[in-house]
């Protein structure tokens, strides 16, 4: 079944090839090379950025772990003989690392962890996965293999023999492990100090042996129990530290291990960063910044976030989706050559070819823009390439400025909306971002209600929010915000002044006192009504007026700066909007595709004969569709003979309405063959399987209407 094909010719280098692939489709445009380079550099930038983020976020956790590890065997180091320590010696120090359900991201964390440990604590690290450790024997094998290999690595690769030995798995027992450990540590001691100085300064004399169980939940209980029980016997000789990677909850340790075993562990709990926070940081750093020219459209972002929230919680996958977006964008949009840093824009715009200029003219957003210009300019734009280039450059700069402003104001708005009760515009900034991208946010109901809520904020909150906004705007790179900052500061001072003038409030307080005197229900009601009346008509207090002013001002900022990107000219160049493509590639629905193909072949085969209104299909449909349709009518078992007959009836009706009556009682061989083929295809697709229950029957594997 396997065939290897080897080319006779020498192959080209891979990077060349990739560029070549990029080129081959859009041969019309000569910028592909440049586009590909831009795409790659952008992606690399983003990749390193995300790695940096990941590292920063995990730093805290790793520090804690390192701390714990260095503490855990200090007794062993000092060789203390205190009684309490002796007691404790039976316990294996264990770190339970709660990582969350996003299993796919764990690998990265573990990699970071083992790197850090290697650098700071110990060279002896073994990473174990459940799939390799079906029994205690496999586990020991794996463990020793990893430990001894790493030993070799540290000792700067001795001979091949040594590798061979470890391949042969000397004898996998705890005692051999201990003797190995002793020899290794002794060797380090005795070795010439000149060579070992470096490593021994990093590690201690007798570094602990760290065993990491990557996916604790999938290990069989027996293996874990045995391993822990055995190694706890030898903890005196072998400073072992366990790290459990846990995806669910720490409770699982106690569920997996009986008390007798878990009492041998001295567990400390570590919580890794939640994946949602991680995602927020990623979005914050990658999307809500003007550093990267490439942007995601609303729908695309929504798709990515939905995959994250409803499918895997995996930040890795989110980033993968992001990568796909970048690739798709640069691949499919010839103008994406302009999707670069602002400094390069000018050069690139002026080197555009005529075709590319035509491409610009074809952009819907650009056409809208042209229509708005006066007629003289319109003609210029549509006919004069160099004029167009100038204009394009200007527009792209505008777009850049728009982004800078957008981000700052978005953050300001988020300061307000994230503290409102019930979060009408969402708690996370990403939700707000989506809402703003989708449509004019100020036209939505949610925005309306959040403004209303903002008008009811108390003073302290309002002041802190304004302060936050000032900070955000000050730190932003946009130049237009000087005035805004001034204005906001002015508001702040006004609030300050209010405090002094707040004595006026007594009036209303006195009226409330009056209220308390009344005991009669009727009067009470009456006064309440009066109060209400007066409040409605009453002039607003100064504070209230000021609050209104602030909210109105924020509103005006929103209206000015948070225009959805779709309204901006040339947004197609930097925004990727093909959400369906993305969804099709990342979150495909193979069953739906099958279902559609079988039920409605016309969807794929554009033939008039297949066209059918309603839910049905024509009897001229491909064989497999007919067979499928027929089988839907059956219960759990299907009689092949009846099925065949039904099939041949349908097929013959489709083919020859006036066929000979004589041939109808004997099924044609060809039809029989076609039937067999269709049925075996259905079997391949998993709709039916042969059944032994009754002769010549097949069992249906799908249940119900699908």
């Amino acid at each position, binding site marked *: 079944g*396997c065939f290897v094909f080897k080319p006779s010719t020498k192959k080209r280098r891979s990077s060349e090839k990739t560029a070549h692939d*990029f080129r081959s489709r859009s041969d019309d445009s000569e910028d592909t090379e440049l586009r590909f380079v831009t795409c790659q550099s952008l992606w690399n930038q983003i990749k390193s950025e995300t790695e940096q983020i990941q590292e920063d976020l995990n730093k805290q956790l790793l520090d804690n772990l390192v701390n714990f590890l260095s503490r855990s065997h200090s007794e062993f180091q000092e060789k203390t003989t205190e009684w309490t320590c002796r007691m404790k010696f039976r316990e294996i120090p264990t770190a339970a690392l709660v990582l969350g359900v996003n299993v796919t991201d764990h690998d990265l964390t573990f990699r970071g962890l083992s790197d850090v440990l290697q650098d700071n604590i110990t060279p002896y690290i073994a990473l174990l996965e459940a799939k390799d450790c079906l029994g205690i024997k496999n586990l020991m094998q794996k463990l020793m293999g990893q430990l001894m290999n790493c030993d070799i690595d540290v000792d700067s690769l001795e001979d091949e023999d040594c590798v061979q030995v470890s391949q042969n798995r000397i004898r996998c027992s705890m005692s051999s492990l201990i003797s190995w450990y002793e020899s290794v540590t002794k060797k380090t001691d005795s070795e010439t100090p000149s060579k070992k100085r470096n490593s021994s300064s990093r590690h201690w004399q007798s570094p602990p042996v760290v065993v990491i169980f990557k996916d604790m939940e999938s290990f069989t209980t027996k293996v874990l129990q045995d391993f822990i029980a055995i190694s706890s016997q030898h903890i005196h000789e072998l400073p072992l530290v366990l790290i459990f990677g846990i995806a669910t909850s720490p409770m699982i340790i106690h569920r997996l291990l009986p008390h007798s075993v878990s009492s041998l562990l001295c567990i400390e709990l570590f919580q890794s960063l939640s994946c949602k926070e991680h995602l927020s940081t990623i979005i914050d750093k990658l999307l809500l910044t003007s550093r990267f020219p490439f942007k995601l459209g609303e729908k695309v972002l929504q798709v990515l976030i939905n995959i994250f929230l409803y499918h895997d919680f995996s930040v890795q996958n989110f980033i993968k989706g992001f990568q796909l977006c970048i690739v798709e964008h640069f691949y499919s949009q010839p103008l994406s050559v302009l999707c670069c840093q602002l400094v390069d824009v000018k050069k690139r715009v002026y080197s555009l070819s005529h075709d590319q200029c035509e491409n610009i003219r074809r952009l819907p957003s650009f056409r809208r823009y042209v229509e708005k210009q006066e007629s003289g300019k319109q003609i210029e734009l549509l006919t004069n390439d160099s004029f167009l280039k100038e204009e394009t450059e200007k527009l792209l700069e505008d777009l850049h400025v728009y982004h800078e402003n957008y981000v700052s104001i978005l953050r300001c708005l988020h300061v307000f909306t994230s503290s409102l009760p019930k979060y009408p515009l969402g708690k996370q900034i990403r939700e707000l971002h989506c809402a703003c991208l989708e449509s004019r946010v100020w036209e939505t109901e949610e925005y309306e209600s959040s403004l209303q809520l903002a008008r009811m904020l108390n003073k302290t909150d309002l002041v802190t929010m304004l302060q936050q906004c000032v900070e955000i705007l000050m730190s932003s790179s946009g130049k237009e915000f000087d005035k805004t900052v001034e204005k906001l500061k002015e508001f702040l001072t006004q609030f300050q002044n209010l405090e002094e003038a707040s004595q006026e409030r007594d009036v209303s307080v006195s009226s409330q006192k009056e209220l308390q005197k009344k005991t009669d229900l009727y009067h009470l009601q009456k006064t309440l009504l009066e109060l209400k009346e007066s409040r409605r008509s009453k002039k607003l207090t100064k504070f209230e007026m000021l609050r209104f002013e602030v909210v109105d001002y924020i509103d005006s900022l929103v209206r000015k700066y948070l225009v959805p990107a779709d309204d901006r000219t040339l947004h197609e160049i930097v925004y990727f909007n093909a959400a369906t493509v993305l969804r099709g590639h990342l979150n495909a629905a193979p069953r739906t*595709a099958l279902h559609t193909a079988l039920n409605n072949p016309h969807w794929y085969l554009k033939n008039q004969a297949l066209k059918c209104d309603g839910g049905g299909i024509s009897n001229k449909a491909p064989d497999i569709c007919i067979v499928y349709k027929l089988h839907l009518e*059956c219960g759990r078992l299907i009689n092949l003979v009846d099925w065949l007959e039904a099939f041949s009836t349908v097929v013959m*009706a489709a083919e020859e309405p006036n066929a000979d009556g004589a041939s109808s009682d004997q099924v044609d061989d060809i039809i029989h063959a076609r039937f067999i083929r269709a049925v075996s295809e259905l079997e391949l697709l998993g709709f039916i399987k042969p059944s032994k229950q009754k002769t010549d029957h097949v069992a249906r594997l799908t249940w119900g209407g699908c």
Partner: protein
Amino acid sequence: MSRPEGTRSSRRSLQVKFVPDEDVLKHIADDAGTKVRKDKAQLSITMKRFVKKLENISDNEAQEILEEKNYVAALGVCAQDPVGNGSNISGGEVYSFQTPKRSSKMAELASELAQTPEQNVTPDHSKCPEKMAKTPQSNSNFLGAEIVWKCNLKKKEFVSTTPYRLRKRLAAPDPYLESESEYSASCSEEEDEEDQKEVSTVLSSQKIPGRTKAASTPPPRNSLAKKIKEQKMGNLVEEYFEAHSSSKVLTSDRTLQKLQKRRLNQQTLHDLLKKAPLAYAAEIRDLNQQHESLFSKWMLQLHLGFNIVLYGLGSKRDLLEKFRTSLLQNSVHLVVNGYFPSITVRSILNSITEEVLDHIGTFRSPLDQLEFIIKRFKEDSSLELYVLIHNLDSQMLRGERSQQILAQLSSLPSIYLIASIDHINAPLMWDQAKLSLYNWLWYETTTFSPYVEETSYENSLLVQQSGSLALSSLMHVLHSLTLNARGIFRLLAQHQLEKKDNPSYPGLSFHDFYQQCREAFLVNSDLTLRAQLTEFRDHKLIRTKRGADGVEYLLIPVDDSTLTDFLEKEDEDV
């Protein structure tokens, strides 16, 4: 409440006898609608009793009804599934355990096949095939399937089952639509009777009660279904197990043998299919061209670290083959035919180590081998390998361990994997961890091309084929045995054939067999017989099973027709 029932059931029996076709039509058009509407409400309350009554009635009538054209029509009702338009179907409709149509009772579920009569408004097709083709109405005579298809356009009232689920979605259902299934039941019975005269083939008695019952149940079903809909189908799961718990299956007992049809072997099948023209060749070509335009994109994405998986109806083998020949000629690539019945992960790994990496030597386990490969690929960055797997979801590769190994392979940056899947449940093979290793990009490539290669292997086919190969292997093995051994096997085969009508035949007990063999002078001690049987068992010629009483039973795991053929052949030889 009981009165309408009474009248209804009596009317039913009357109709069976007297009402002619045209009247049925008229009947449904005029008074049925109004009447039934009245009934319906009441029925929904008392339907259980009603079902019982109907069952009684149908028992009486059981003998007279029944022919297969109805069944054919039942099978043919295709439009039953209103879901399938376009690709924007919601997931729930595709995936769920949906049984709205026959959601209620086991009886109904088992007798789905008998839904036929409902829309089989017209006489048997053998009567007047030509006429039928012309007018829509007579067209519907032809078979149920067509009825529904055409009727969707023309005579909505007649399509009973089809629009049912559609109807449910309508806010204000049309009374006509509501009523039709109830009345179609009666007209179908009338029709049954008519057909019965003409139809030659008579179904076995087992089928009859079930079918008739079902023929008369539709009215309660309708209302019941409605009720259930109100309960939002809460107990679907229970229903599923209920439906699957009963071992009794009501299908006809006909077998392929009775068709007097010779079994096709692989070769003739292939030849026959060659003769049959491929339908919609032009459209399929268009489809393929669309997919082919993506080739360079695939290459790009493969190089960027993604792997590609193709799904969709139709064989993707040719497409991948084309991809291979057009783009991979200059690079090392490995083609894996996953559908091949004896493929294993081991053989894939072997071909990588032996042929791609030129490594001589064996490995203790696939995991070791994998490690070796990973190491080699990491060391040498100039190594590149394209792996094409046809049917990644095949029987042999779908196991957890194989998938794990393949996933790890594919996660190597210099191994580019492009694979195809076909099985509806294929995506279930992968958990999150494997998915992230695979790093798939999904591409829908519906080709509609027939799965020629994929289904051409013996074990992927249904009974039709299994005969020839099993027979040839039987003959082959037997010919290499001693005369006595062949005699022993013959004895067993003959005995099994004698008992072929007994479905619960457990096999021949060892003791009886020994007696028979002694009588035929084939063996002289039970030790010799045991030695012989061991040999048979090693060649998978027989199977032994221990019965409840501890007695050993012997069985030849080959179907009866093959066995008959075998005996005939043996006779020829001797």
